[in-house]
């Protein structure tokens, strides 16, 4: 068996139950919808959904690009902000004691509650969306980073000290890698919140995006397209989650 064949065989060996579950769900939907056992208006046939998929593939692609143009900068901003706040507070006990309760209080406010203010006060929808997504996703990574930095094994820091590692080199070569399990765990936990907020923002204020596509077609009663958009969104989000999972596994290889 060649290299590609081996990868495919390994994939099926690992995920055959997952594939069976998905096939069962699709089969169930097809059986129920194609035999009109359920509201045909809300649950169109699989053929109709496939047709909507094929017909709107370029529109969905454009909406995907629009969604990613908000999602990617939001994740970058959220991660940078979380690392900055987390590292500073993790390293400084006085600051941590003083500001941890404040951060905690702010973090428990759901960003959906802030959405009317954000949409009204921000200069445009993009800024409001960015703010809401960052607000939703930043806290888990902040707290993960604080915990990670606080709990770095003293022996790593001693080792760094004996090698005269200071400043940014110490931060990037020792502290962040040592704290990475906690940071990444916080970040991965925040990802689902990021997607929820992205879709929410797109459904209620955007003119493009995957969430907008679903909402627009649902409002027009085009449920074949709504389902196509819905499935497309799930596939994209699962792919993004899988990419992050791979990155996480690569970064945390030393812990496994």
């Amino acid at each position: 068996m060649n290299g590609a064949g081996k990868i495919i065989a390994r994939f099926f060996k690992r995920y055959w139950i997952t594939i069976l579950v998905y096939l069962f769900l699709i089969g169930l939907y097809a059986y129920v919808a194609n035999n009109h056992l359920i509201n045909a208006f809300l649950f169109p046939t699989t053929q109709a959904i496939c047709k909507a998929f094929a017909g709107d593939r370029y529109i969905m692609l454009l909406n995907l690009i629009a969604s990613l143009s908000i999602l990617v900068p939001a994740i970058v901003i959220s991660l940078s902000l979380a690392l900055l706040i987390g590292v500073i507070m993790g390293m400084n006990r006085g600051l941590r004691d003083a500001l941890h309760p404040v951060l905690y209080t702010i973090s428990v406010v759901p960003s959906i509650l802030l959405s009317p203010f954000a949409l009204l006060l921000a200069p445009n929808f993009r800024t409001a969306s960015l703010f809401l997504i960052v607000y939703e996703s930043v806290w888990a990574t902040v707290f993960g980073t604080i915990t990670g930095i606080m709990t770095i094994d003293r022996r790593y820091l001693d080792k760094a000290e004996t090698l005269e590692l200071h400043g940014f080199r110490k931060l990037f070569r020792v502290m962040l890698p040592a704290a990475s399990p906690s940071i990444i765990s916080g970040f991965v936990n925040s990802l689902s919140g990021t997607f929820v907020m992205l879709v929410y923002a797109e459904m209620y204020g955007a003119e493009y995006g995957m969430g907008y596509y679903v909402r627009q077609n649902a409002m027009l009663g085009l449920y074949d397209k709504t389902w196509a958009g819905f499935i497309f969104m799930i596939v994209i989000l699962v792919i993004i989650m899988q990419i992050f999972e791979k990155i996480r596994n690569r970064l945390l290889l030393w812990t496994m």
Partner: protein
Amino acid sequence: MNGVEIDSLSFCYRDSKQEILHEIGTPVEAGEFVCILGQSGCGKSTLLRLLAGLEKPTGGSIRIDGEEIRGASLSRGMVFQDYGLFPWMSAGENIVLALRQRFPEMTKAEKKALALSMLEKVGLQREIYSKLPKSLSGGMKQRCAIAQAFAIDPPILLMDEPFGALDAVTRAKLQDLVLELWESGERSRKKTVFFVTHDVDEAILLADHIIVLGQRPSRIIYELRIPEEKRAKRETQFVDPEIISMRNELIRQINQDVEQHIGE
């Protein structure tokens, strides 16, 4: 010259009133192999941390060639019992990081070449360079840590029970390796080694200067300097009457201190 003068050294942790070390003092000549011997918890590692500059003494001082130490330095390499290598870097990257700190003028290729040659010197294959520490055995990890310590060529080497967690055979091999690396230098360029252990036989085999620490607050209860011609050899360590009497005396001193402590 890497002579070390430990003078009336005392130490207690900031948040504790209990004194760990009490007025420890001894001169250590350049190129000596000093074993710090004592029971677990007596403060051997604390003394080593003070020598490393990782802790500040609450009394007294440590001077190297007359200069008081202030903080950790690359001129005092340290080998820990565990966590000697950063687990998120490969064995080679760990060595290269130390080289980068010690010799910033070296090119990337030079550092890699030196790291590879050090791995070979400590008996490891070149393939180990790209392996993460988690995929190495305890003995291999310690060989890498020793390679790292010797690669940066510090005049003073501090070793904190480096073989404490290893099996007897691996430990014996690594003891020989450390001795070989230490003895390979001329007396004037030889590293001054401080080696913490609670194993009397290990101390006798390695050291030419043994410091025995007593119970807390720890002080030096016995000191032994072994002349070059009387140094222990692995083959005769347990049959040579002189070495046996040395061993018995060390054990007697440690036991006497323990009994005295229980009596108090």
